[in-house]
């Protein structure tokens, strides 16, 4: 089959792309077959899918399908060209359901229509946007205001005696981001859930066009509040991949330390937050207290609680002195033992266990179909972790295990977080022990125009993938951000089915997904 593919799809530009990325230029009609081959026979998983307006470069649009083949530490990129005369492409969602959102987004933002898509509804602009406004086309100017039309929205209806619809949001009682949830329920039991997100889409990808790389890094840091560092690291990784810049050893270790500090404050805070789903005030306050201590540690050592301004292209901006390292060690040592105490209390608490066990179950086949990532995937038995599977920073040198469970319920998801937090303590310890001396930043090589690369990192919610193509003079031509939340949101409605409505906040919290990571 490989040979067949090589003959069938002419090999394209393998030379100038990333060293472990094979690129195939595929004809539009061969796309479903090629995707099926890489996903089903080669064990690839969707890394990201994007559309790009390349008419200025060679006269047509292009779609990129990027698969990660973890077992071979390799990436496959399928590129198809879409001429302006026929702005369609064959949908693969029927065969590979995880492609659903990506394909709908391509239509919303670029106006290239997926043919035979099972659910061809707007994703990002909902229904209130008239057709014909495609922001990611290059002729679309930033100052255009898209008109708004009043429409009555239709959600999947479940009908029958005793079935009621309960609309919740987009404005919520708590301080959370906007999302509309529509439950169809019989009594307390959820039959079906529609989740509608993308209420505050910010157009970051459009905004970044033409932006110098250093400024785009600051923009990447601001995609999300709680995984600011993972986003910055992913973007910097992509820049370093295009320019083939070798990071200084010390920078690789420093990045690892900071990335794990980010995971720690997220995981420990999330373990506390999940307790809010069943009103366990002790857990909430202890979790947020420990998280606050970690945030203050971040502020002391980097100057920013959420670790912004830590990454620079080609390394890091912040170095650690001996006294700071001592500070990290002492603080983490204390927090580790306190966190252990908290988890022991939580996991032996009868009511807490009762509420978490078998709640919000996600099966392995659902997880595989939707290509869920991060702790949610590992809780259902999908053993992926990009830190181990496609190592970056210093993860190939340090030893750590990837905790995974098979139950797929809220309890398994909280357990994955707890275990990972302890792995993070150990990773930071190892990284500090082996922290090499030397410089922390190296100038990045000049990037050739119209080349692409991608960078990735395992954020506390799963892998973030940043793909970008360079424009002339060290600027950005197209920037595509795929966050973990983007992969995981479609799984939440499935996990809720068959559970009672009062468990929804608990299930939702156990995924701890980010709205702003989607609303790029």
């Amino acid at each position: 089959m490989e040979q067949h593919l090589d003959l069938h799809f002419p090999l394209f530009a393998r030379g100038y792309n990333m060293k472990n990325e094979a690129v195939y230029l595929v004809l539009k009609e061969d796309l479903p077959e090629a995707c099926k081959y890489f996903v089903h026979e080669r064990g690839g998983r969707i890394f990201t899918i994007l559309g790009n307006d390349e008419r200025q470069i060679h006269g047509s649009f292009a779609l990129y399908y990027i698969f990660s083949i973890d077992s071979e530490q390799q990436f496959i990129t399928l590129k198809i060209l879409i001429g302006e005369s026929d702005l369609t492409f064959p949908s693969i969602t029927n065969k590979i359901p995880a492609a659903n959102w990506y394909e709908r987004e391509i239509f919303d933002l670029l106006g290239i229509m997926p043919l035979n898509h099972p659910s061809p509804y707007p994703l990002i602009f909902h229904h209130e946007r008239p057709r014909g406004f495609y922001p990611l086309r290059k002729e679309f100017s930033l100052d255009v205001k898209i008109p708004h039309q009043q429409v009555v929205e239709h959600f999947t209806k479940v009908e029958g005696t005793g079935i009621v619809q309960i609309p919740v949001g987009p404005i919520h009682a708590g301080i959370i981001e906007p999302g509309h949830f529509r439950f169809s329920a019989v009594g307390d039991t959820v039959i079906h859930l529609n989740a509608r997100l993308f209420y505050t889409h910010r157009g970051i990808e459009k905004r970044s066009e033409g932006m110098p790389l250093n400024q785009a890094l600051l923009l990447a840091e601001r995609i999300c509040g709680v995984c600011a560092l993972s986003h910055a690291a992913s973007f910097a990784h992509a820049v370093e991949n295009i320019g083939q810049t070798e990071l200084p050893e010390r920078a690789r270790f420093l990045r690892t330390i900071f990335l794990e500090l980010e995971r720690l404050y997220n995981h420990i805070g999330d373990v506390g937050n999940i307790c809010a789903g069943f009103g366990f005030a002790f857990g909430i306050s202890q979790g947020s207290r420990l998280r606050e201590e970690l945030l203050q540690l971040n502020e002391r050592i980097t100057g920013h609680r959420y670790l912004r301004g830590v990454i620079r292209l080609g390394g890091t901006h912040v170095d650690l002195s001996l006294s700071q390292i001592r500070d990290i060690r002492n603080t983490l040592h204390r927090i580790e033992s306190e966190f252990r105490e908290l988890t022991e209390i939580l996991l032996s608490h009868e009511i807490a266990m009762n509420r978490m066990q078998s709640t919000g179950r996600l099966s392995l086949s659902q997880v595989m179909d939707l290509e869920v990532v991060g702790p949610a995937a590992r809780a259902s038995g999908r053993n992926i972790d990009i830190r181990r599977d496609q190592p970056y920073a210093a993860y190939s040198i340090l030893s750590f295990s990837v905790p995974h469970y098979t139950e797929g319920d809220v309890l398994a998801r909280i357990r994955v977080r707890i275990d990972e937090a302890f792995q993070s303590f150990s990773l930071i310890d190892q990284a500090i022990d082996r922290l090499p001396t030397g410089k922390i930043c190296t100038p990045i090589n000049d990037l050739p125009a119209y080349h692409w690369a991608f960078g990735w990192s395992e954020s506390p919610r799963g892998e973030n993938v940043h793909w970008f193509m360079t424009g002339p003079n060290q600027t950005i031509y197209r920037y595509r951000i795929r966050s973990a939340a983007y992969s995981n949101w479609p799984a939440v409605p499935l996990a809720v089915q068959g559970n009672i409505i009062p468990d929804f906040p608990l299930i939702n919290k156990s995924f701890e997904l980010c709205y702003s990571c989607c609303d790029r």
Partner: protein
Amino acid sequence: MFQIFSKIWKTGVVTQKDDFSEAPPLFRGKPVFGTTACNGCGQCIKVCPTGAITLINYQLLSLSYSSCIFCDICTGECKTGTIQPTTEYRLATKHKPDLTITTSFPQKGDDEHVASAGSFRPENAAKPY
């Protein structure tokens, strides 16, 4: 149950009184104009990612806290130390003009030794994003 009570007892009160006197030394607070004079190189205007630093009539260098994102890039670029980093985080004011600070910007040829440095022209500034 006993464990929970004991942990709560041991933790005690952790909230702080509102006298957060000083932020940690590395904290990136608002940048200010120090006492050293600006040499007019214009580097800060070029590197500011949000266009918070601007030039008014070729005479005044102005920094607006309403657009500043406290990235600290300008303070790193400033060779004369005119822009100084501080750890000040209390930015609220009732008077909007308080959010803009200015310092004098040498004009071209003002002084022998800044002649070359003072050649900055606004058209060289990066587009504010």
